[in-house]
């Protein structure tokens, strides 16, 4: 893990990811690089000096000094509505990081990896999926991604390409409404749905679960019930505003 001091950064690109989320690309001169799964602190300063800081997972990884965040708007929030609605290319902010040395995956291992995301919990797992795809060989990856509807999936198109190219096997789960043509079940992920979509216990996968607290609690409890080793399950819960 590298932290460093606050670094001045500039937004270079923004794009809509869903109706409530945007992907921001931010150039951070002097950026030391990051491992897949790490996060950053973002500091915003108003003209009168007022500041607010929040943590965001990185969808990018590696040494490139342009990093990527995907931010989902919390309607009553203070920072996310600004990042999702107001920020535009050329705007400035500050970045500290990368942060976190635990919820990371580093290329090189051969153990199967199971990623399980709920909603915007996809972001750090996307960095891992991209790293696995770029590494081209090594650990087999699966991703189970639970979203309310097809339109709520961040990185939907890229995940479709990763899945088709065989780098990462993606299973979708829809809790509210499925896209046209979907013949699977719609509803909260249940035990059978999780078991069918993920590596079996005898493959002893390393499991990364990221999403809102209720989702992560439910999925992690189910994994333990299914016989997965709790010590091989890493979780990251979204708790703040």
């Amino acid at each position, binding site marked *: 893990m590298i932290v460093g001091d606050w670094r001045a950064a500039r937004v270079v690109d923004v794009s809509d990811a869903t109706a409530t989320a945007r992907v921001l690309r931010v150039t951070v001169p002097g950026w030391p690089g990051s491992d897949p799964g790490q996060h950053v602190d973002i500091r915003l300063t108003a003209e009168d000096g007022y500041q607010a800081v929040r943590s965001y997972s990185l969808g990018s990884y590696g040494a490139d000094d342009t990093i990527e965040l995907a931010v989902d708007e919390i309607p009553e929030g203070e920072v996310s509505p*600004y990042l999702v609605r*107001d920020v535009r290319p050329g705007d400035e902010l500050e970045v500290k990081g990368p942060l976190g040395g635990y919820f990371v995956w580093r290329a090189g291992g051969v153990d199967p990896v199971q990623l399980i995301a709920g909603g915007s919990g996809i972001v750090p797992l996307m960095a891992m999926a991209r790293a696995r795809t770029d590494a081209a060989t090594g650990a087999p990856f699966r991703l189970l991604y639970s979203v309310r509807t097809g339109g709520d999936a961040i990185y939907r198109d890229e995940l479709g390409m990763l899945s088709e190219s065989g780098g990462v096997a993606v299973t979708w789960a829809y809790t509210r409404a499925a896209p046209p043509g979907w013949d699977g079940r719609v509803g909260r992920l249940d035990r059978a749905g999780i078991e069918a979509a993920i590596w079996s216990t005898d493959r002893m996968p390393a499991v990364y679960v990221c999403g809102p607290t209720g989702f992560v609690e439910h999925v992690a409890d189910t994994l333990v019930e299914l016989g997965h080793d709790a010590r091989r399950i890493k979780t990251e819960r979204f708790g703040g505003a």
Partner: protein
Amino acid sequence: MAVFSRGFGARRRESDPRLPPGQYITEDFPVLSAGPTPRIDTAEWSFDIRSESGAVTSWSWDQFMALPIEDVATDIHCVTRWSKLGTSWRGVSIDTLLEHVDSDADYSMVHSYGGYTTNVPMEDLRDGRAWVAFEFDGEPLDPEHGGPARLLVPHLYFWKSAKWVRGLTLMGDDAPGFWEQNGYNMHGDPWTEERYW
């Protein structure tokens, strides 16, 4: 030199002198932990203090509940920047537990069911500054918040208030616990923003 973010600040939060720098107030109770939630039956629970001599003092749940119990009203502060003001807890003071332990140690390693660890200097655990808490807001502590019992060290960032606590190992020298090995500060004072290495 500060970098100004164009147009930021319209939705600024209230400030409060009880808030350490860089924190914001939340009304709900976020959950942050590194793995699945352990489910610990109080019949299986014990709390053990191992002193630097190797002597172990141990309490079963029933023995623990027979100790003097204190009500604690306090603010809590998470390193992820939320603070929760005016929370209420019940628990046993670490001072009460240490009355039964012969030790001159300056540091402790806190151990949890599930394998979590965190280091806390003894001066941060003594003199009415820390408890083993088993109730929050008048209810038994939920497993996702560390039940049946968690450490409560409210004057440090909340990762020091280890959930599912099972005991302390008292030490002459400081050593990093779980998050401290993964990038977080050895001490964790919110008022001086001891967040990271």
